[in-house]
């Protein structure tokens, strides 16, 4: 019996288990998945929790309900990956050997990387919304907040779901309006990037949205420290921003397991072939989702597009065929823009978001790089799609590779 081992049962790992289980010969292959948490979090839903749109209940389900019955599930911390020995060691000391390893250990926030961030203000008037704890604590704070200066800051790139911070300020603008306190709130978006987003066309459009919603943009703001005693964030070049409420996107890093195993870069992301998803250092190791060092977005849609390339490549690797270089960096993101509307962007490594109709060229129903009600409903429907189709590895009506049809330059 040969072993295919998957590390991490989040979005990417779960999709891979569901795609590979029906295709691999069960007389020859045992699939094992290892994770340390029984709960599966619908992370795109965290954005809505601070505004009371979703509750904890809407975003948490048992992991086991979404994994195929015939695979081996191990709930344990992993001590180390030993790629030279083709094995991993669990916290208990138990060794699991593998023939093929898929690493899907994701990324997490590290507020401690910024001086003073985890000081006296942490979860008092400084919150993240990338964890269930942060998002629910912020919901509770916002419920009673009477207004003042709200600063959202991005610490450094890359971050998981790079549009989420923009969505947060757009939703905040809507929510404060609904509460009747928009005139008492000053919103500032502080980013280390030169504009609202990294890709020029989308950055310009999203920058205009910030303007129209009277949200201040503080570009090129590389945060050095937080001073909770006077409620200020300070940049490396000495700029300061005052806040009453700080919503922070801390440094994102790959799992500490990757550092312990000496397999990652400075942020614990793993060197990965950008098109085949094979490890750059070990031929029987593949990486998917947020754990890679690729310049594609760290997002569930990307993990899904990667899975369609990776499952074929796993089979080709088993059959000793050359791998297909078919992952093109495709990402597809609904951007919630507030007041029941949304924007949709679709892009890859080489082609930035362009206007047009999606997924049917000329028809839609979704509009690219435009604010529409249909895009908002697409975003809200996505939660159902995620739990019922995406995690199960079902075929989706969208190709893994980005399509130019229906797009305008």
């Amino acid at each position: 019996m040969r072993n295919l081992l998957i590390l991490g049962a989040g979005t990417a790992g779960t999709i891979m288990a569901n795609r590979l289980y029906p295709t691999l010969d069960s007389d020859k292959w045992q699939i094992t998945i290892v994770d340390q948490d029984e709960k599966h979090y619908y992370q795109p839903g965290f954005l809505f929790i601070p505004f009371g749109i979703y509750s904890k209940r809407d975003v948490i389900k048992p992991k086991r309900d979404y994994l195929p019955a015939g695979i081996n599930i191990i709930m344990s911390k992993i001590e180390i990956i030993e790629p030279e020995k083709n094995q991993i060691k669990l916290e208990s000391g138990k060794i699991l050997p593998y023939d093929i390893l898929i690493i899907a250990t994701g990324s997490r926030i590290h507020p401690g990387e910024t001086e003073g961030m985890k000081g006296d203000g942490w979860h008092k008037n400084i919150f993240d919304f990338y964890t269930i704890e942060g998002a629910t604590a912020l919901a509770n704070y916002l419920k009673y907040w009477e207004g003042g200066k709200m600063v959202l800051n991005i610490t450094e790139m890359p971050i998981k779901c790079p549009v989420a911070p923009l969505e947060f300020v757009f939703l905040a603008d809507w929510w404060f309006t609904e509460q009747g306190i928009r005139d008492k709130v000053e919103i500032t978006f502080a980013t280390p990037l030169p504009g609202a987003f990294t890709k020029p066309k989308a950055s310009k459009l999203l920058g205009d949205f910030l303007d129209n919603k009277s949200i201040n943009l503080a570009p090129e703001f590389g945060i050095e420290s937080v001073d909770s005693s006077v409620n200020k964030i300070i940049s490396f070049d000495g700029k300061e921003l005052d806040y009453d409420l700080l919503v922070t996107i801390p440094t994102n890093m790959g799992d500490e397991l990757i550092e312990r195993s000496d397999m990652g870069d400075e942020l614990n992301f793993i060197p990965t072939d950008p098109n085949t998803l094979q490890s750059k250092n070990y031929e029987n190791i593949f990486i998917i989702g947020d754990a890679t060092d690729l310049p594609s977005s760290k997002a569930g849609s990307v993990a899904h597009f990667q899975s369609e390339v990776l499952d074929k490549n796993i089979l080709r690797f088993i059959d000793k065929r050359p791998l297909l270089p078919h992952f093109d960096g495709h990402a597809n993101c609904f951007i919630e823009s507030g007041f029941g509307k949304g924007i949709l962007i679709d892009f890859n490594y080489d082609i930035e978001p362009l206007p047009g109709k999606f997924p049917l060229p000329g028809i839609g129903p979704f509009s690219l790089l435009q604010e529409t009600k249909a895009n908002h409903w697409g975003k809200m429907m996505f939660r159902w799609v995620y739990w019922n189709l995406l995690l199960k590895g079902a075929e989706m009506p969208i190709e893994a590779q980005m399509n130019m049809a229906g797009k305008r330059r």
Partner: protein
Amino acid sequence: MAEVTLNTSTFTLDGDGYLADHTTWTEEFARDIAAQEGIEKLTDAHWNVINFMRSDYTEKGAVPTIRRLKKSGGIATKDLYALFPDGPAKKAARIAGLPMPKGCV
């Protein structure tokens, strides 16, 4: 592709205004681009950053990030901002004759 003539030499730039081929880089190029970027004189501290970036790029094939400059190059981020004000990663890469650092999305 655009060309730029600095003193006596001509260099080819890419669409972003960065040196198209990093092997055509010269110290003269660095000094002239630095002046364009508002840095009057390249000090030893500047050269330390430029040289680390160039050797790291040759070795790894990617423009080092600010975090990598700190962790592997031993260059404090605050110093980097002081040496190359307003967008140090991009400015230093341009002077070092490397491509524009990839914004990660």
